[in-house]
């Protein structure tokens, strides 16, 4: 065989290799991605080139060890690719990246797998939905979870589905609750060992909230913990009469997990009806709380209620950020929580003890927090027939979008909003499947009169170390990286980077669409990327190749 023939033969061999399952990331790999074991999820922080769960890691710091994009290089970011979501609605996704493959959820309950370098698709799964959905706030989905080679996704018809990560085929489809009664599902599940832990939405429909865990292989339910205790439990007496049956308290954002304590942490939403508390006198446990549940059984270890007897729709639907911090010379296993009610809290995550708290945004409803962290309400701040002006707004001083914590700076970065609203109370009868809010809210001035800010909070004091003003507001999450860069976005379509140490702007780009999502970062073949969904487009940026 001549040399020429040898070369031609080698070329033919190369060209003839199967390419259908080869990601650009690892062309030598026989698999699209290697199975994501529980051990990988436990140590997700040690493989920062991947983003293996909704909050990046089980402690939900939303902090990446990647540092190629840092304070000196971030200004050179360039657009690498964009993926257009075909269904027009709110895009609230945080994608996962596993070994060069990105999984993006789309409105209403779909998921697409794309090459993380090019954004081009491998497969998509479109979940069929009935026509009679009950959804309060847009047809959205925030992300998937992965275990092994299977993706787990919540759907708007209150189902949990398992999808093959290599092909997009449906593996099982489990009804979690009856959507006709007002239940829906929007949050990414959380994997805990071999279980899929998943919450429920429907706080504006008089549901009774719960948190579930399902066998990852079979889809069989392993435990359910109601977020409103039944009549056999003493805490049920925090609800007047039968109001607990329709008391809401949903669980529509992904929680966190501490493997050493074997505790799942999950926030709960508003009691229902939202704005008429007269029909549900009492503290309304465990609405607007964080619950600490045994990961194997769902048994409650402790709870902390941020807003007893909430009448302003201030869901405690924030991501529990788990960090060990120095407090009074002692290292504490802490939980950091900037709440929709305007207060920041540091809790002991072993016991639920309140360690400190302070307002981080404009609030007019409480004098402060007492020594147990219970708010000291100001009189005359309940919703009324004619409207009562209160800060924050119903949407909160912050909301479900992610905060981020950097161990390098020791700061928690939060998207805060200094707004106010008129809160109206109305009588309303519960009708199954109908909205059950008991009133409403209006902002008295145009939204331009108010402002948001990224605020950097010191969790050992609750003090705000710096802030970056956003005009007029933001509904975006925050990402922090080892490059000392904080990424976020604004409602008018800016994606931007700040210096994590002082809040100085380092880079920005106007992408035009409204933002309802949180940024994430990953790397393929040694190159770091940062991804943000703006409008209905998933954008990915990186430095020059």
């Amino acid at each position: 065989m001549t040399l020429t023939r040898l070369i031609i033969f080698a070329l033919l061999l190369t060209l003839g290799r199967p390419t259908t399952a080869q990601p650009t990331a690892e062309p030598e790999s026989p698999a699209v991605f290697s199975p994501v074991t529980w051990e990988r999820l436990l140590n997700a922080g040690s493989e920062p080139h991947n983003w293996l769960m909704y909050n990046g890691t089980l402690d939900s710091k939303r902090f990446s060890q990647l540092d190629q994009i840092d304070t000196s290089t971030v200004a050179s970011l360039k657009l690498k690719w964009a993926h257009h979501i075909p269904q027009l609605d709110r895009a609230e996704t945080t994608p996962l990246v596993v070994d060069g493959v990105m999984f993006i959820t789309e409105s209403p309950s779909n998921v697409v797998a794309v090459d993380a370098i090019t954004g081009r698709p491998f497969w998509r799964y479109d979940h069929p939905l009935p026509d009679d959905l009950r959804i309060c706030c847009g047809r959205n989905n925030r992300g998937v979870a992965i275990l092994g080679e299977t993706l787990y996704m919540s759907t708007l018809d209150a189902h949990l589905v398992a999808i093959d990560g290599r092909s997009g085929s449906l593996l099982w489809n489990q009804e979690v609750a009856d959507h006709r009664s007002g239940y829906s599902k929007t949050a990414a599940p959380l994997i805990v060992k071999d279980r899929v832990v998943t919450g429920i939405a429907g706080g504006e429909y008089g549901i009774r909230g719960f948190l579930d865990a399902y066998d990852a292989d079979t889809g069989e339910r392993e435990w359910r913990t109601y977020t409103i205790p039944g009549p056999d439990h003493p805490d049920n007496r925090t609800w007047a009469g039968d109001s607990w049956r329709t008391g809401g308290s949903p669980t529509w954002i992904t929680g966190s997990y501490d493997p050493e304590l074997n505790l799942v942490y999950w926030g709960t939403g508003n009691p229902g009806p939202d704005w008429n508390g007269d029909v549900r006198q009492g503290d309304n446990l465990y609405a607007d709380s964080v619950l600490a549940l045994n990961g194997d059984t769902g048994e409650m270890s402790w709870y902390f209620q941020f807003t007893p007897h909430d009448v302003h729709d201030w869901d405690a639907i924030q991501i529990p950020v788990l960090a060990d911090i120095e407090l009074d010379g002692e290292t504490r296993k802490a939980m950091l929580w900037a709440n929709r009610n305007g207060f920041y809290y540091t809790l002991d995550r072993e016991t639920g003890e309140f360690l400190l708290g302070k307002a981080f945004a404009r609030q007019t409803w409480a004098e402060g927090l007492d020594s147990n962290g219970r708010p000291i309400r100001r009189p005359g701040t309940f919703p009324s027939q004619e409207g009562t002006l209160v800060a924050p707004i119903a949407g909160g001083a912050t909301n479900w979008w992610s905060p981020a914590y950097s161990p390098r700076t020791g700061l928690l970065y939060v998207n805060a909003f200094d707004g106010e609203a008129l809160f109206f109370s109305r009588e309303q009868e519960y009708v199954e499947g109908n909205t059950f809010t008991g009133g409403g809210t209006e902002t008295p001035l145009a939204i331009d009169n108010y402002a948001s800010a990224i605020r950097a909070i010191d969790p050992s004091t609750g003090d705000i170390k710096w802030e970056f003003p956003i005009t007029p507001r933001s509904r975006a999450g925050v990402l922090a990286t080892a490059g000392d860069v904080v990424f976020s976005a604004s409602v008018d379509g800016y994606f931007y980077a700040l210096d994590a140490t002082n809040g100085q702007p380092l880079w920005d780009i106007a992408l035009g669409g409204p933002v309802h999502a949180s940024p994430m970062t990953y790397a393929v073949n040694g190159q770091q990327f940062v991804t943000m969904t703006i409008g209905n487009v998933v954008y990915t940026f990186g430095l020059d190749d």
Partner: protein
Amino acid sequence: MRRKHLTQCLLVILVITLTGPSWTTQTIAQDTNNPFTSRIDLRMGQRLFQTQCTTCHGLNATGGNEGIGPDLTTGRFRHADTDVGLYRVIRNGVRGTAMIGLGAEPPDQSIWQLVTYLHSLSSTADDPGGSPVIGRQLFNGKGNCNRCHMVNGEGGRLGPDLSFVGERRRPSELLADLVNPDDEVSPRWWTMKVSGLDGRQFEGLRMHEDTFTFRIMDADENLRSFEKYGPWSYERIQSSTMPNYTQSLTPEERNNLVAYLFSLRRDR
């Protein structure tokens, strides 16, 4: 004759096709006046409004936050000028807009009660009763309003376009605008004052501001754009650039001007 009959049949089919199923099932809405206008009906309409409409139109029907649904308290409705028209909009929605309609499920009575409630929201009780004709003369003459405000394509650009101001402001609010112009200034009409490091200064109306940039129209109607983190300092002046008409117009003249402004609505 046979051909004419066929044409009539086709016409009926076409009408049914175009109007959809609501035409065939909701016959009551075709030609009749609203038969449900009592106080009880009004209250029931209000209840239905609060469960079905407040998400977009606001609890008091004055418009949703961030511009989702229009103000329904002005007495003027963009897509209907009769009760039957309102009925159809409520039931069928408005194609191409976010107004989706309640569909076929609610009974006729409920839709009519909603119509009754919507009518109760608008009031001309605070109309000062001036002359719109004289008001128009004042607008373009003594008041000099047209120097800054445009009406139907004529006038200045340094104030809000008032072509349809009667649809969004009540007479009492218009009167208050004349005598207390600083009380309620939309951020669009704030003034941005910009100072450059090189000593240059700019001042203009705040056309748009975001996190990193803002744009103004200066007194010469030039459009200028600035980066917030550029070589500039800037401040927002939240008072109005409009003069106070307490001294320059008599109460009667102000009433006439209000009557003119309140008359500025879309032709139907």
